């Protein structure tokens, strides 16, 4: 939409023992602060956080760093953090362009839950 302000929406829903956090819109550095808070809140409220990427219009490096950081935080807290469901095309393109795709996870990834392995 021409002239429309870019938006990012997040929604958190607790379902049983897991918290589902959904992101839509522009997952970019402009909204990185909001995303960070949403992720912190989800990890505080739930031991098992599932992130769903809905209608993602844009995604950038800041978004990837946030998700990576959230996973690291979850591992440290002995919580579970995953990205579930189909990954939007824009998101996949950014992951690839930023060189985030990999064969093995980081040193913290004992549970083999790295968000970037073979996805």
């Amino acid at each position: 939409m021409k002239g429309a302000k870019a938006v990012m929406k997040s929604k958190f829903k607790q379902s049983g023992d897991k918290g589902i956090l959904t992101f839509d819109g522009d997952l970019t550095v402009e909204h990185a602060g909001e995303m960070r808070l949403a992720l912190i809140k989800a990890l505080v409220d739930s031991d098992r956080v599932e992130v769903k990427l809905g209608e993602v219009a844009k995604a950038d490096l800041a978004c990837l760093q946030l998700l990576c950081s959230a996973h690291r935080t979850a591992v440290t807290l002995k919580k579970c953090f995953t990205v579930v469901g189909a990954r939007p095309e824009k998101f996949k393109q950014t992951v690839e362009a930023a060189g985030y795709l990999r064969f093995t996870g980081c040193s913290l990834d004992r549970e083999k839950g790295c968000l970037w392995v073979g996805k």
Partner: protein
Amino acid sequence: MDEIREPLEDESPEHIIAKLRETFKDEAYELLAELEAALLELEKSPADEDLTGRVFRALHTIKGSGATCGFRDVSGFTHEVETIFDMVRKGKIAVSKELIDLTLKARDQIKAMFDQYYRGGGSADTVRTREIAASFKNLLPDTGDKQNAVSPYGPRRHTESGGPSQAVPGKNVTYRIRFRPAQDILSQGVNPVSLLDELRRLGDCTVVAQTDAVPKLEDLNPELCYTYWDAILTTSQGMNAIKDVFIFVKDSSELKVDIIDEDGKLDDEKSYKRISDILVERGDLTADGLQKALKSKKLMGEMLVEAGVVAPGHVESALVEQQHMKELREKRQTAESTSSIRVSTDRLDGLVDLVSEMVTVQARFSRAAALFNNPELLSIAEEVERLTGELRDNTMSIRMMPIGTTFSKFKRVVRDLSSELGKEAVLVTEGAETELDKTVIERLSDPLVHLIRNCIDHGIEPPETRKVTGKPGQGTVHLSAIHSGAHVLIQIRDDGAGLDANGIRAKATEKGLVDGNRPDLPDRELFQFILAPGFSTAKKVTDVSGRGVGLDVVKKAIDALRGSIEISSQKGLGTTITLKLPLTLAIIDGFLTRIGAEYFVFPLSLVEECVELTREGVKNACGRNIANVRGDIVPYIRLRERFSIDGGPPPIEQIVITRVEDKRVGFVVDHIIGGHQTVIKNLGGFYRNVEGISGATILGDGTVALILDVPKLVQSSEKEEMQSLKGGEPSIQKTVA
């Protein structure tokens, strides 16, 4: 990633080495030829980096493949030479005539080592090997390198002066890049991912993000960049293009670029570096860390991560580099393997023999089909004939090789000989791509060397003499090859003193080779005498030309190839020797004829036309062996008489008119049969020297037909005529009605 080995058959190591060596044989000599050619060019253009690269690569491959094939002496020796050329590449040593001389000597020594195994050429002089190797060591600059020979495999850290800064078309260089942007790059409005995209556009690029610096959420400032990247890029764009990508962030970012491969120079290494080697090179792993990890027995990457000495991201990046290089090499090797394959000459000769047999059988089949006169059979016979013809042409084309493969050898001859004789000469070649049958090329090499040596020794004058006559001090020998119908013309032209026609005439008269009554003998015919055995007008025999091999040997060799030699020369301006050679020696297009019950084949390329010879025509010629062909007088030779064939000729005979050395000469036969694919079979040793016959072929019904050596027949008839003229009885009168 560990080296992958193909499972080998259950064979002894000696047998495996022998097989490897046999496979390497052709390549070894090709590499030596390439080394020689590159060195000779480098001598002319010492600053040319590409040529230095060519020399280095040839040496590197000889060393690597030599080691693989168990030629330890070759490998060790070549390493010394390669070390020097690695320094030349780095600009630490300059190319000089001394270096070229020494490297050419080293090349000859490597050849002697290979000859020792492949050709049983005696043992290579180990003392000489040591001497040459020592000379190379002495060339090393005094920086401690003499003790620590330079490893050509380590990465070259790019400096302002090192590595190709400019794009080198066609030359692919692989770079290892680490880009660590300033943390505030995002707030500067720069998207580092777009820089990576730009990097990718330069060539084949693999990027791995390093995330080990990404903190936990509570410590994370979402507007900062914590990621840094490792990239492996193969490109011909040069270092500057890489730097240009990061030009706007260069002051705030960390950029490290290493060259890890240049134009596939590491392709002959069995496998790319191990993960641990890459990590140590990158500075991501210390030697101590490696030792610590090696205590367990897991995969190297896992061990390193578990030992806590390397971040998994770095292992990932090293794995990516390994994979990138593996794929790059596979791509290159696939491209090479699809463009050509190496087949042993024995197999090729075997194929040619089979095709020759096939051609003979096809002739029998066509003949049988004609006898049965069955339309269907005739149609199949025609199809088989067409296919056999194509198969023949294709097989023959496989045997074709560019003559240029031998040219570098001649350059070396000119270089060494002119230097030995205190002359200045250069060899200019043209038509290196001209293709000739492999056997022809092999058998042509020695005669050409001899002719070129003659040019330098007798043709090219010393520089002072040349300058006096207004010529440049440096003489030129021009060697060219060009296709001409079913032949290849090879020309050796020099701008030397030229032949002394009067001297040759005097010598020929003295030897009784030329009739004193014929002072008008054209120079072209006169010069042919220098090809006669024992004919020399030289005042002195030099070391070069006095080796007991005269030009008559060259002539014999060219005759054996069914070729001819033509000489033209102008005193003071130079000499041109033209060799006319058939494209192939195995199968020719022939022209089949019959005399009585005997069959004879003319090489079709020599045949111009056929005319009838009637009794009346013979009568009109007043008993002379000449025919009037549309007003043109053509002398002829009666093959029935020449070969003493019994029986009388038919009322109407046929004259096959050929062109030999610009003369039209006819050959009288009884009947003409027509075109015939002629598989040339050598005559047995007993008949090898029969004059006028160059070989035999087997016809469809199993009959043997003789292949005529037309130039030789003409030559011997002329000789007979000369002798009979001397005897006062012109042969032209000796006609049988």
